[in-house]
């Protein structure tokens, strides 16, 4: 089963590789409505991203016994995403969007530990996103008389300002919901954590990127970065619009980072981390400068790699141990060493540490902020990065380091190879992007040209170049490896007997001896200290859940009010309805 669908997953990649480039297909439904697929550099980038992700996830699904339905739905999802990124008009785009929503909804509902509430959350927010999208589409159609991207883009300049603004806000809301901007992230965490373990990687790595693609489509293609600058004016060296968006992104990133640290469930931590990382992308996506767009694209790539790697890793551990909390895991390092190394590479990337690819993308985004002189944005991003070290460490400590919290973990075996192969590929990718940050410039440059922005300078495959400083990824990587090996050799020459595999209870414990019943794993307590810091506590104690719960309550009450009509006095109801319609009628006549 798995291998069939593996093949089916490879096919579109081969297809895109073979026939890609200037794909342009259109079907006429009626005279006015045409469904068209146009391949743009941006679309191609996202298409490859999603297709390869699906392929890798399918590889890792080998050891799970999944039904044919499941694979079919996943394939449908993959197809939907392909439609989205290749769409040439809004109808096609919307069709893809809906297929994506529904197919993913069915996959999520297949999970073992999903509850009805989170499922409802997911579908409600997806629908809200779709409604907002369709409203925007309808408004733009009423002005441009077309669903075609190019036509709408051309007529956008002639629309009145309030319509322009409404359109941008509606589109943005729709895509923000998908990406999980703070405030609209209510569904993200529950869904990510309760979806099937491997499917969470798709949700985080690919589906959230569709939101990013949508934002690129609107800001870059439909509106155009030049137009944004004219529309909103400038602040410092950037646009007002970019600045506002950047604050949204940075706030998302900081809040989600602190939320992530205090989670006890592994996948919830990853979900919040995903929100935080997308916050970075949103922060720079509106800058409208070369580095802003390049940084956003680069981070999209890196984040996809990292989140696939981490979610597959965690899924493997959960499948193997049956435990999904930091307070229940721990001490797996010498039982599952390969998984540990993979996770380690993943978190080094996630933290944005220099030898790996995570740094290159962050550097690009920081450059963007310096260019525009958005100092506070830059500080916010750096600050969120510094705080993210905590959850990165919690991730690796809670699962692999420390002490095992239960007996099963002491005899755990390494995870199956099918989980490891995609991880190894992704880790290699991460290392390569770290060593050759310049290689990606060639991928980005066509997209920059598409947005009519200046191309990035290219100084060589190892160098990431920018106006405000450059770094040589290859040098840093090789110097790191060289020094590491050198110091390792020097230290291992010193024959101070370092006895291996010392008993894990032989720790300095104030003269006492811990026993097997002594709880020594810091997994749960980790991060609870943050509540005592006033600033962080202010973030942590607030939750969007309270807002949405209140909203739900009010909705319920108003619907209760409405429902009285059905069992109330029929005459009164009729009178109310009559009054309502006559009021409408008079308003209509007067206007």
């Amino acid at each position, binding site marked *: 089963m798995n291998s069939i669908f593996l093949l089916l997953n490879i096919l579109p990649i081969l297809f895109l590789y073979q026939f890609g480039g200037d794909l342009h297909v259109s079907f006429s439904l009626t005279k006015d409505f045409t469904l068209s697929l146009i391949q743009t550099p941006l679309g191609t980038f996202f298409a490859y991203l999603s297709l390869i992700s699906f392929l890798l996830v399918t590889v890792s699904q080998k050891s799970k016994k999944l039904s044919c339905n499941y694979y079919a739905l996943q394939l449908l999802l993959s197809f939907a995403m392909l439609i989205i990124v290749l769409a040439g008009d809004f109808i096609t785009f919307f069709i893809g969007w809906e297929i994506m929503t529904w197919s993913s909804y069915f996959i999520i509902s297949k999970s073992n530990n999903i509850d009805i509430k989170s499922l409802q959350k997911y579908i409600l927010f997806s629908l809200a996103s779709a409604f907002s999208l369709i409203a925007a589409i309808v408004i733009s159609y009423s002005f441009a008389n077309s669903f075609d991207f190019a036509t709408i883009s051309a007529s956008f300049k002639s629309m009145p300002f309030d319509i322009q603004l409404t359109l941008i806000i509606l589109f943005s809301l729709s895509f923000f919901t998908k990406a999980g901007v703070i405030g609209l992230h209510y569904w993200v965490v529950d869904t990510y954590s309760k979806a099937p373990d491997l499917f969470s990687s798709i949700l985080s790595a690919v589906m959230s990127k569709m939101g990013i693609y949508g934002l690129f489509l609107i800001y870059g293609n439909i509106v155009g970065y030049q137009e944004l600058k004219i529309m909103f004016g400038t602040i410092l060296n950037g646009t007002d619009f970019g600045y506002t968006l950047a604050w949204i992104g940075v706030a998302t990133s900081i809040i989600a980072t602190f939320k992530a640290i205090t989670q006890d469930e592994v996948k919830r931590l990853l979900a919040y981390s995903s929100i935080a990382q997308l916050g970075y992308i949103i922060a720079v996506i509106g800058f409208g400068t070369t580095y802003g767009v390049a940084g956003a694209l680069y981070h999209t790539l890196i984040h996809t790699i990292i989140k696939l790697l981490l979610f597959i890793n965690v899924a493997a551990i959960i499948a193997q141990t049956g435990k999904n909390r930091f307070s229940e895991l721990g001490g797996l390092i010498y039982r599952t060493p390969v998984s540990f190394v993979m996770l*380690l590479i993943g978190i080094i990337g996630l933290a944005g540490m220099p030898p790996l690819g995570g740094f290159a993308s962050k550097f690009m985004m920081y450059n963007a902020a310096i260019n525009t002189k958005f100092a506070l944005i830059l500080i916010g991003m750096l600050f969120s990065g510094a*705080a993210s070290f905590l959850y990165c460490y919690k991730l690796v400590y809670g699962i*692999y380091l420390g002490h095992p919290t239960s007996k099963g973990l002491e005899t755990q075996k390494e995870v199956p190879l099918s989980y490891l192969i995609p991880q190894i590929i992704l880790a290699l990718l991460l290392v390569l992007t770290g060593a050759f940050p310049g290689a990606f410039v060639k991928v980005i440059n066509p997209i920059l040209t598409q947005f009519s922005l200046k191309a990035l300078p290219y100084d060589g495959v190892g160098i990431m170049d920018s106006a405000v400083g450059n770094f040589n990824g290859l040098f840093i990587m090789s110097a790191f490896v060289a020094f590491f090996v050198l*110091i390792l050799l020097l230290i291992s020459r010193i024959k101070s*007997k370092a*006895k291996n595999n*010392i008993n894990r209870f032989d720790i300095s414990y104030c003269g006492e001896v811990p026993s097997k019943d002594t709880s020594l794993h810091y997994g749960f307590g980790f991060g609870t200290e943050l509540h005592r810091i006033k600033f*962080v506590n202010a973030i942590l104690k607030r939750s969007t859940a309270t807002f949405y719960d209140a909203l739900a309550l009010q909705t319920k009450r108003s619907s209760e009010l409405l429902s009285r009509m059905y069992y109330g006095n029929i005459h009164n109801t009729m009178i109310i309805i009559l009054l309502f319609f006559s009021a409408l009628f008079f308003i209509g006549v007067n206007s």
Partner: protein
Amino acid sequence: MIFQIILLIMLAYVVGFIYFGLYRNILARIQGRYGPTIYQSFYDSIKLFSKKNTVNYGWMFYLGPIIMATGAVLTLILVPVFSDSDFLRSATSQGNLFVLLYLMVLGPLGNALAVGTGGNPFGVMGVVRGLTRLIGLELPFYIAVVGLIIAANSSDIVHIIDMQKTGGLNIINHPLLFIAAMISMVGFFGESPFDIPGAPQEVYSGPRTEFSGKFLALLMSQGSLFAFAKLVLIIDLFLGGADSLWMLVLKTLAIFVTIIFIGVVYGRYKVEQAVDFLMKIPTLIALLGLARVIWFG
């Protein structure tokens, strides 16, 4: 190039150890005692390297201190030592200030993995304290560095040094940023009131609890290298670098002694108090400095 790198590492090693010897001496004099010889840190290091056995909890525990040392060496070679000559700064052009900011954390994070492997709850508590403190500690430092980067419109340290040759020293141009960065530096040097991660009265010995023998020696050695790198970074950013060895020693020593004097008269904050403090006063100072850079500078 390789020769220069080796020379630089040796210089930093010697200077770092002598500084720590000096540190212990100055501390002793303030406390009203004679103090150890100036080479005491060197003796300690040799003694620890020659310990006959060393506790080891497996390969990750072994590699942790090595990652930390690698991070320190990498930081060191990316910092330009002299302002005028290209001597000892062959690798500087390969990185920039952002690389340094992250490399400064890479080592401790690598070591944190080893601490976690050791499984000592005190060690992990120390690491968590360290990382939590980092949230507060980085904020003023980042603001100061970002201010300088925006003022120079470059994240290249050599460029920042060159700017100061013509435009005056940054300590005079941006005194607020300097103050904020120095407060952070007190913490980066593990001085009171920010010496929270390894507080012996609270968490035993913090991250170093389980390290012994050669690992501890390696940690101490990298500490001195790293301290030198941090000092040079500060003088590069704010004091226009050093044009000769004497100036280098003079300027770094001035910074170092300032940090010691701040550290000696204060007790230790609790971690939340430290972060609260760092997020208020130094951050405010730094933000004022930053506003000056953006709108007037």
